Every structure is written in structure tokens, then in C-alpha cells.
């Protein structure tokens, strides 16, 4: 739980939190006083948002039992497309190669046990 533990275990994180609040307030004050030029964060926000979305979809597909190969192929294809790899055939070849290397390295090479799939034939 986030609270409810004894005083001895609480005092150290509490002290750190107070310090974090103090220094955070100093930083906010500094920004307000210095009034820095506004910086556009649209590209970084798009990058982080899109990538996180793709990765989250991939993790959900893995945990839903869709196997490794299909979700990885789709994720790689999407990454390659977003990054501007054209024509689509080249992107598809890259995606197949990356997925095959990933499967060979982790599953066949390192013996990593993948999450259970819906059916045994789904790799």
C-alpha cells in the first residue's frame, strides 16, 4: 500500500518527498521569473505517444496469447512505416527479417519462455 506503514519506514521517503517539493517549487519559481522562450514539444510528444502506443499494443497482444511472431511483425512494420521506410515491400522484408532474428535470438538461442499462446501452433 502507498500508506499505512510504520513511522520508521515512513520518515525517510517523507523527508525525500518534502525535499522534492521544495526543489520543485524552486524550479517552478525560476521558470516563472526568467520567462524562457516557449519550445515546441509537438514532435517529441508525437514520437513518445506513437511509440508508447505501439509498444503497449504489442505487450497487450503478447499477454493476450497472440504469440510472438504476428504482433512483432505488425509492430516492426508500423515502426518502419512511421520512420519513413518505403516502398512497403522493403519495409515488409525488414519486418520479417527483424522478427525472425528476434525469435531466433531469444526463443531458440536463449531459450526465453514466451507468454502462453491461445493455441500451441501460434509462434
Amino acid at each position, binding site marked *: *500500500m*502507498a500508506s499505512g*506503514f*510504520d513511522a*520508521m*519506514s*515512513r520518515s*525517510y*521517503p517523507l523527508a*525525500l*518527498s518534502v*525535499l*522534492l517539493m521544495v*526543489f*520543485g517549487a*524552486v*524550479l517552478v519559481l*525560476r521558470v516563472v521569473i526568467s520567462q524562457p522562450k516557449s519550445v515546441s*514539444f509537438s*514532435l*517529441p510528444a*508525437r*514520437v*513518445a505517444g506513437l*511509440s*508508447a502506443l*505501439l*509498444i*503497449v499494443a*504489442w*505487450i497487450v497482444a*503478447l*499477454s493476450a496469447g497472440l504469440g510472438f511472431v504476428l504482433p*512483432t511483425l505488425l*509492430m*516492426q512494420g508500423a*515502426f*518502419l512505416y*512511421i*520512420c*519513413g*521506410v*518505403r516502398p512497403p515491400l522493403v519495409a515488409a522484408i*525488414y*519486418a520479417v527479417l*527483424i522478427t525472425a532474428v*528476434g525469435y531466433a*535470438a*531469444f526463443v531458440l538461442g*536463449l*531459450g*526465453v*519462455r514466451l*507468454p502462453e499462446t491461445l493455441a500451441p501452433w501460434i509462434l
Partner: protein
Amino acid sequence: MDMILLGFQTLADPMVALMLLVGVMAGMVVGSIPGINDNIAFAVFIPFSFSMPAETALALMVGVYCAAATGGAIPAIVLKVPGTASSLLTAEDGHAMARKGLAGRALSIAITSSVVGGILSSIVLLLFAPSLARVALEFGYVENFALAILGLSSVVGLLRGNIVKGVIAALIGLLVATIGFSPMTGAARFTFGNINLIEGIPFVPLLVGLFGIAAMLDLKADVMKTRDPDAGPESLPKIGSLRLPKGLMRRLTPVWGTSAAIGNVIGMLPGAGMLMAIFLAYDQAARRFRRKFEGQPGEETWGDGAPEGVAAPEAANNAVTASSMVPLLSLGIPGNSTSALFIGALALHGMVPGPLLFTQHGNVAWMIIVSFLFANLLLWPVAWVVLRTVSRSIFAIRKEAMVGVIAMLCLMGAYSDGANLFNMWVAIAAGVVAYVMRLASIPLGPAILGLVLGPQLESSLNNSLRISNGDWLIFFDAVNHPISAGMMVASALLWIVPAAMGLRDRARAAKAAAATKDNG
């Protein structure tokens, strides 16, 4: 001496030696792929070491660590695209030499400089790490607390002009480290009922996310900013002869010495980082070049093919690699971000860096030290093979394809640590947080150090206060705890000196502005 022999003996195992060679080769190849920095290379290789015995796995990691910094120089010289951040400055003079048909000579200078810098720093590691560890074995709770404070202060104090953000980063790291069992009472803290958090945030996925996923997002932003679907692989200059004339070697010897010394000193300071070392070494080499060679017949101008411009950053960056292991192996404090990943690699095999590593796993600790020496000796032949065989294929790999590859390798690597999907969530969350921190110019180094030192800081603080019945002056007791008092004074200086220098700079700037106004 016996312990050094033990290190050699461990390394003499054919499998361990082979893995060191594989690591050097893999590090060189991965380091030469533009966009893959030393951290990603290391983060990607951690999962591959899961199934290996500790000695074999750590030999592989040492090889990767040493060679990735050198490999970065290859595309920096041939393409003017630094393979790693550490070869940022090598690209200037190195590529200028390549354009003039001296690619082979520039590569040869880069590799020789890396080897010289690396060997000198391996000797520093050999001499200093065990001695420091012997001193650190005398440490009790009070000294351990002072050491953690010194480690954190050295990182934050070095961030001139960015101290508030540095403190915030360190506090975030310290707070995240409090998740899980309390070291004092065993109570579960901030776990929100999640069983995966009872032992704290899993460290390997956290590091993989902070370094690998964040770097992947950076690379993706870079690709999206500069993408050109029609661009194919660039035509490469001819590499030519790799022979280095004796006269040039004599000329570069002082540069190697100075740059390696700078790299060694900076490497041993926790959090100072490789970039600081290469910029300082480059600056020193530029001063020497301008004083001795610039303007003479047949000499280039600085930045346009001066051999010193390649030698200085390459000697400095490889000098940082081994020397950054001095505080890590002896005190448990990482010298830079990549060596922080070493903690993850050691943790995977049940080892904790610090003085006890030398007593509990002496063979592994000494093998790591000796491996640094041998990895640097292997750099030349491996670089020669890589340059003559796979370089052109490496440069044909599209940067765009690397984004998905890094994402998959990092996430699968995180998952492999216990075959737990929760680790993937940790890695992606840590990656996004690290990326946002980078955008907000909040340094990652202090946060990592906070994460690493957090548990030690809390338990040593609590135990020290118990011993002293709540008297905080125990940490400054020069009679009973002189080491602690010394470290606390050093920590205070690390805060006061940069702050005083900042105030002095500000006063000077204000004075200069006032003088300009008066003259105007």
C-alpha cells in the same frame, strides 16, 4: 599479485576468453552502427548474458563496453556520422582526413589512440580499485552514509548551472528506490498491492528502459526530423593503408599521454561522464596543435584534418571506460551511465559491486580488471578485421530500421529477466519518463545514482542514528569517524565550490555589462 594471477587464471578459461573476443567484436560492430550508443549496445547485450556463467557473461560485457566506444569512431571518420556520442569530436578532423584520402590513417590513429588510452586506464583500474576496496572494507554504517552522500554530491556538484535539476533527479531516484520492503522493518512500501513491487522496482528492466527505450525514442525523433525516403546508403571513401608512420606516432605520444590522463581522472569521478573527458582532451590538444604546428608548411588547420583532433578524443574516451570502473568495483558507485549498467549485469549473477565483491567473488572481480587490459589489446586486430570485412555492410543498415530493432531487443531483454510481462511495463514506463526528463533537461545521471545508492543511504542513515542515539553530528565526528568527517567535508566542498564559482562568474558578467554600458 596472487589475486592478479587469479584474474588471469579465470580469464584463461577458453570459454571466458572466447566471450571476451566475441564481446570486443560485437561491441565494435554495434558501436559502428550510427544511432546505437554505448548504453544501447550494453543494454541490448545484458539479456544475452542471462544464461551464461558469471565469468563468461561479464567477460562478454567488458568486451562490448571497451569496443563500442572505439567502434563509434569508424562511421565518424568514414561517414561523418558518430557511431556513439563519444566519437562526436572525432568526426571533425577524422572525416576531413578521410575526404583527403587519408581515411586509413585517420582510422589507424583512432584505433591506436583508443588502445593506448584503454591500456593506461586499465593499469589505473588495476592499481586503484583493489586499494580503494581495501580501505572501503573498513567502512561501517557511518562511513557508508558519508560515502553515499559523497557519491550523490559529486554528481550534482558537477552539474554547474543545473544544480536544482540535478537535485530533483537525485531525489526522484532516491524516492523510486524506496519502493518495496523497508530495510528497517520489512514493511512493504508504495507497492499498491502489486506483488511484483514487493522487492522493489526490478532493476534490469528499469535500466533497460531508462537507457535503451529512451535512446530509441531519441533516435526515432531524430529519424522523423531528418527522414528522406529517397536517400540510399552513402558512397564511402576508400579506406586505404592503415599504416601509421613512426614520426606521427612520436608526435602524437604527448597527446595520448595528456588525453589518457584527463580520461582517467574524469572517469574516476562519479557522474562526470565521457563527454566531459573528450571535450577537455580535445581542448588541450587544440592548444598544443595551435602552439606547435598550425601555420607551418604542410600542416592542416584545426578541425580540418589535424591528427591530434582524432587522437585526443579517442584516447580520452577509452581511458574513461576502465577508470569509470574504479569507483564502481571498489565503492559500488558507478563512474558513468554505462558503468551503471554494469551493476545490472552483476546483479543478474547475484553480485553486488563494492568492496565485498573482492572478498566474496575475488576471481570475478579480478577477472573483470584483467579483461579490461586484454579487451584493449584485442581492439587493434578486431578493428582491422571489422574494417576489412563487415564495415560496408554495417553502413548499409538503415537507421530507420534500428528503431524497431532496439525496441524489440530492449523489451525482450527486460522480459527475459524472470519471464515476467510486468518487466516490459516497467521498461516502457521508465523509457518514457527518461525521455521526458531529457526533454526537460533534467539529467539522468543523478537519478541513476539515487536509485543505486538509495537502499544503502537509507539503511546506513537509520543504523548510524541508532548507534548515536539520534545524534546527527556522528557523521562529522573527526575523532571516532575521521573518514566520514573527511567525506562530509569533501561533499560540502563539492556543493560550495561550484556555487561560489557560479556567483563569481555572474558578478564578473554583471561588471562587464556595466562597463560596456558606461563606455556606450
